[in-house]
């Protein structure tokens, strides 16, 4: 089975104006056992949230490349949290809190996703589109995040299989998801899949960077990060 993966992260206009760094982090890595991706969004009120987001991205990669999806979700989430606490040193947790979304797809098509906090995960299994993340109940940016204590109840997880060409998973930060038209999510998923199908990984990344940089919602300001893994 051919798996195609790519991602991009762009700094938001608000952070550009204030000369701040991108507080999102992205990693998309492929190895012989498939693809692992992480999309993390540093909590805006934390002074070093960019560091926390990058640490979470690394923690996901370290955990999942050892894990190979053999562990139950609860153990995987706990391991990511423990590794994040190691990676953020010497910073205090309240300086670096971050959301954490991850996905892993094996060459067999078996897939797992996990989410703590804001953002959106979409997937298509056996040709059927799913919005994994429930609709937000409160208002913008009130989010769970990696913090001092591991909070198993705050994580969301799913396990599924990419069976058909076009099946896949997309993860994104709320800088994108909060501006997406709800009814258009399946079509949004399809456009990203078609791009992955037609382009090299590098071309797809450039396309995505341009699209996120030219975001259409007026007055948008947040950083924007998206990662995708598809069965080709």
């Amino acid at each position, binding site marked *: 089975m051919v798996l195609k993966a790519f991602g991009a992260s762009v700094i*938001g*206009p*608000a*952070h550009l104006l*204030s000369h*701040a760094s991108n507080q999102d982090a992205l990693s998309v890595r492929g190895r012989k056992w498939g693809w692992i991706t992480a999309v993390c969004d540093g909590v*805006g*009120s934390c002074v070093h949230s960019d560091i926390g987001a990058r640490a979470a991205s690394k923690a996901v990669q370290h955990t999942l490349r050892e894990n190979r999806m053999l562990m139950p979700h609860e153990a995987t989430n706990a391991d990511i949290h423990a590794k994040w606490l190691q990676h953020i040193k010497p910073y205090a947790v309240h300086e670096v809190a971050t959301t954490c979304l991850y996905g892993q797809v094996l060459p067999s098509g078996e897939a797992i996703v996990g989410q703590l906090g804001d953002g959106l995960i979409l997937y298509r299994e056996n040709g059927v589109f799913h919005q994994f993340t429930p*609709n*937000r*109940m*409160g*208002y*913008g*940016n*009130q989010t769970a995040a990696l913090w001092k204590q591991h909070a198993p109840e705050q994580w969301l997880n799913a396990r599924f299989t990419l069976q058909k060409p076009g099946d896949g998973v997309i993860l994104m930060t709320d800088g994108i998801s*909060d*501006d*997406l*038209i709800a009814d*258009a*999510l399946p*079509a*949004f998923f399809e*456009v*990203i899949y*078609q*791009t992955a199908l*037609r382009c090299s990984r590098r071309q797809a990344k450039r*396309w995505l960077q341009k*699209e*996120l940089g*030219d*975001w*259409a*919602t*007026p*007055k*948008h*300001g*947040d950083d924007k990060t998206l990662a995708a893994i598809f069965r080709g």
Partner: protein
Amino acid sequence: MSGLKQFAMAEARPLPIIVLADTSGSMEGADKIGALNAALKEMIDSLAKESRLRADIHVGIVSFGGTVTQHLPLTSAQIIPALPELKAHGATPMGEAFTLVHGWLEDKNLIPSRAYRPVIILLSDGQPTDAWEEPFKQLCASDRAQKATRLAMAIGADADEVMLKQFINDKEAPLFYAHNAHDIHRFFRAVTMSVSARSTSPNPNQALPIALSIPTDDLDLDF
């Protein structure tokens, strides 16, 4: 190749500001109601002119004097028409006003989930004349409404400070006091500056301290 523009909302994220204005009969004295009208107009004008915003500021005004009135439905500050002036008369049905605002906050069509955290501003110069406790409890306990930032200003010496202090949920903002018309202006200027700063920052959800020490050349008019 298709682009992603077609999937993005055409409207900016709203930042709702809801003013709960006591317009009971006692607000007539010392031209408190005049000061309130002027301060509200100044706030709306200032927010409408602000061009750096990362949000579309929506202002709504609920008055409670005799009856509860939706004086201004939540409307983008940039398109608010000239408003009729608030008039002072009658009793103080604050609990009914809480119920109306509670309904606004829970209505996802009116305030979508992508909206930034709303701000509710309560101004009162007296004591509620209806059973306000239960509506207030519901406002504080409900899923969405409890997440709004609540500020309050006590106008004059008769205001129920205990009740107003209970209303506040922002650690950065104590109960503000208006001893004269000038204080109402200063309060609204401070709120305007705070909301404006919040909505131009990279994180418009984060509440900012409200400082009342704003230089002004207004006359000090006692109530």
